[in-house]
């Protein structure tokens, strides 16, 4: 994503290790505590499993694993951000396990920079833009791409 097309707006920032990320607020349905997760076998390992969210079953993705970050034990701050993403006509609801939710940030156009070129080492499809705020670098995630990628891999597993 080279352009920072209308990236300004309200974001929910969260941490994975020492890194700070942010999601558009419009994608966030709710934030829920890290409850009992039921492990689901034979799916990609970044799926931590499923939880019971108000009587529905919600698949939960561990963002650390999805992004290849080192494993960390859950802490009391660990929580699940429930995001909704539309794929075609179907609306998918997925939970994302993050180390902690930090705050709501308003990012103006001035705070935002296009994604730098990381070379081949980093999958920039997941990044919408970068932002700098109060000396903190925030990676704005492209949730749709992250989830679409996760699901394509599930489908590939299925087909195999």
């Amino acid at each position, binding site marked *: 994503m080279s352009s920072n097309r209308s990236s300004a*707006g*309200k974001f*929910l920032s969260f941490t994975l290790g020492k890194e700070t990320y942010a999601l558009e*607020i*419009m994608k*966030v*349905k*709710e*934030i*829920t505590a890290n409850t*009992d997760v*039921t*492990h*689901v*076998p*034979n*799916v990609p390992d970044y*799926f931590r*499993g*499923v*939880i*019971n969210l108000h*009587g*529905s*079953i*919600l*698949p939960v*993705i561990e963002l650390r694993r999805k992004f290849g970050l080192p494993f960390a034990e859950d802490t009391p701050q660990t929580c699940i951000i429930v995001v*909704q993403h539309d*794929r075609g006509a*179907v*609306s*998918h*609801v*997925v939970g994302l396990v993050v180390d902690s939710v930090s*705050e*709501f940030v308003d990012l103006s156009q001035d705070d935002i920079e296009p994604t730098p070129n990381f070379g081949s080492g980093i999958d920039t499809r997941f990044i919408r833009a970068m932002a700098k705020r109060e000396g903190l670098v925030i990676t704005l995630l492209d949730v749709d791409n992250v*989830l679409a990628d*996760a*699901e394509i891999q*599930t*489908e590939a597993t*299925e087909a*195999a």
Partner: protein
Amino acid sequence: MTQESIVTTLESVSEQVLLLDANDLPSVASIHTELQGVAARLGNAPKATSLVSSCLGILDSIVLREDPGVADPISVLGQALASLLEAARADDWELITVPAELAGGAGGGTATAGLDGILEEFLQNQVSVLEELEALVLGVERGEIDDAGPALLRAFHTLKGESALLGLDSERVCHRIEDMLEQVPALLVAQTLLEAIDWLGQYFRHLREGAPAPGSPDALYTRIQEQIDGEPSDLPRPSGQQTQAEAAPPASAASPAASGAASSAPISLAEIEPQLLTDFVQEAGDHLEEAEQELLRLETDPEDSEPIHALFRAIHTIKGVAGMLRLDHIQRLAHSGETLMDKARHGELLLQGERIELVFQTVDLLKRMIGELMSGGASEVSAPPELGNLLERLDSAVNDGGKASASAPAQTKSAPAPAATPNPAAASAASVPATSSTADAAEAGSSAGTASSAASAASASPAKASADGAPAPETNGTGSRPESARPTPSVTNVVKDFIKVDAARLDKMVDMIGELVIAESMVAGAKEMQDISSPELSRDLGLLNKIIRELQEIGTSLRMIPVRSTFQKMARIVRDISKKTGKHIEFVTVGEETELDKSVVDKIGDPLVHMVRNAVDHGIEATPEDRRNHGKSETGRITLRAYHREGNICIEVADDGRGIDPARIRKKAIDKGIITPEAELTESETFMLIFEPGFSTAEQVTDVSGRGVGMDVVRRNIEALRGKVQIRSVLGQGTTFVIQLPLTLAIIDGMIVRVGEDRFIVPTANVINSFQPTEQQKSSVFGSGEVVVFQGRTLPLFHLRHLFDLSQSAEEPLVLVLEADGRKIGVTVDELLGHQQIVIKSLGAALGRVPGITGGAVLPDGKIGLILDIAGLYKLTESKRSAGAPLPEPVAA
């Protein structure tokens, strides 16, 4: 108060909303309070005020646990607040963009520009709301309802609130009416109320379909003001004509559209109102099904006038609606068919032989054309090639049949509706006058006769009376049993009221009931509850439990529909095949009113077709002589029977034909390599061999059945419905296939098992047995492929922890013997935790299909348990095997 303070408050509120849990009422309340503060400080900023009050409305409904009218209230709130905040920071309220859910796309152009979500739903609901209101007002006027004031007031108040939420002009109108109703009794202002309802109806149609906008409501306001001031003007309206004229428009969303269409180019109504088309297709389908059944009756007794009348009515209704929707080809064909039947009805010709064949063809072609209408989504179908030919033949049949005058649709008007059969056709014919202003409608209406009282209830599209549920003539037998084919004249004439409901909504409700059942058992089973020794509380809990059980029953029954229509299709198939094969067959159906979950009924059709075909083609002896030689009557009999047994539904396909010869089956199975010559099978196991892929006993392959596919598909389809199929057969006397199906697909009986720390649910239907194997019973092949001996047979043994890569090492002392697809395997588990009714849920679109897992369920402790897919487990064992681990193959049962 300054702009700054508003910004600060909004900022804090936005953040709270994001973290908001709808169950956290104190937080919701505190947000509500803060927003109220904002509203008070806004001053003169209409756009902001309206948005804030929308937000307050949503919050209210969250607190009150009402339906907030938007799919995702909290995120809508978030959007609205974000927009408010932005505008507040810029100190320019005009910057506000109202979230689509709150304004139905009003953010951009007019409200009609993008009808989405909430507005559309609102408008759709209003058709029936206004209709109810109107009925209420008319009731008041006729003196049938005494104290409608509060009800009317409430209704208009709700409408006002909703209109305000959506920013619609109807708010002001409702507001004034409310004022009026508070001061003047409803009886005195009925006329004004009706005018207001008409105005609202027109206004909503304008928003929904782009119908002409109603005039300015000012005149209405004046009238209302007059009423409030006590000036006389409203006299009870005695004129029936007036009532009808006024009742018509709001009763149906289509009529102004129709008049609009009439005044401009000839546009098909279907283009304007796709809902009408959908309804037509659905109803026509029902009528045609009915027509077909009547035809079958007629065929056995051409003199019987009852079926002719019913047939005529069905085709006539289709003609009328097709005409209204400008479906010209369909109308023409229906018209020609109707003309032929009209003659038959008046005794001018007999429907038999060639002629009845012609009517069959007409019904078939109508079916096809109407089917295309749906799949094509077009409002008109192209004429199929055979249409012209069929029309010609119909016309010549009419002319041959008698010298009677040309087709006389005019006659139909005066045709008395036969009173003996309360007919679905009547109910839906009654909906025609309300949806059309053409002469056709009146004509159809007259045939509706007794059902006219149901007309208004039947007409609204969202609340359309469904024809299929109306009491139909009871026909236990079709085919050559005229005595049982007679309709029972005593069937009551009551036309039931039906509401068509979005199936997804119904599913959601059934789902929620399932949750309720589980939540209740969680509460009742809680440790803390056991310590409470209050008799009142335990009595109340008992009551709660009872109510919930009843609710669960009702919930399950909502999706249940009778198997009748599926059985009727079979009657047609038997007829066609017996013609083709030249066999005389009497087809009897029993228990057509037995109800099954709709999704099951939809899916059972295909397997039943296979089995019925099989019964005709293979079951019944090839020639009447064969049958006579065996001392049977020449006419074969096939019985389709549905009944309840042990909480399941059974459907039987029975024939009194040759029966299955186990020896022949065995020989064939050995020839085909399905079993080894040494295999020892019981009789019923032998019969089951015909379900093996590639097995077919037909001496010759016919185009009816016997291509060697079929019976294995039948079994797969039935097992996909979590059903079972069994065969009983006595050589020389006949064969009976018994399909056993669960009542519903949403709930299963499950066995909860533990493997290490994980819990899984095994559908009880798949469980054959569970036992603790001795060391002698267990063995292994090549050092790793394990087997277990069960009832003298060696089964492959699998460990869930291998298949599912579960980390915990476990004892797994128990073996479950599971069966699906006719194969048995053993699976080891640690413990059986219990039996339970399980509400099946999908694991979510993001996960898609997980190998070996059909879905999940919320267990009594609130955690999720995964439901095993036994057939999927086989595949999993195969893929694991190909991945390296040598595992034994599942054996045929």
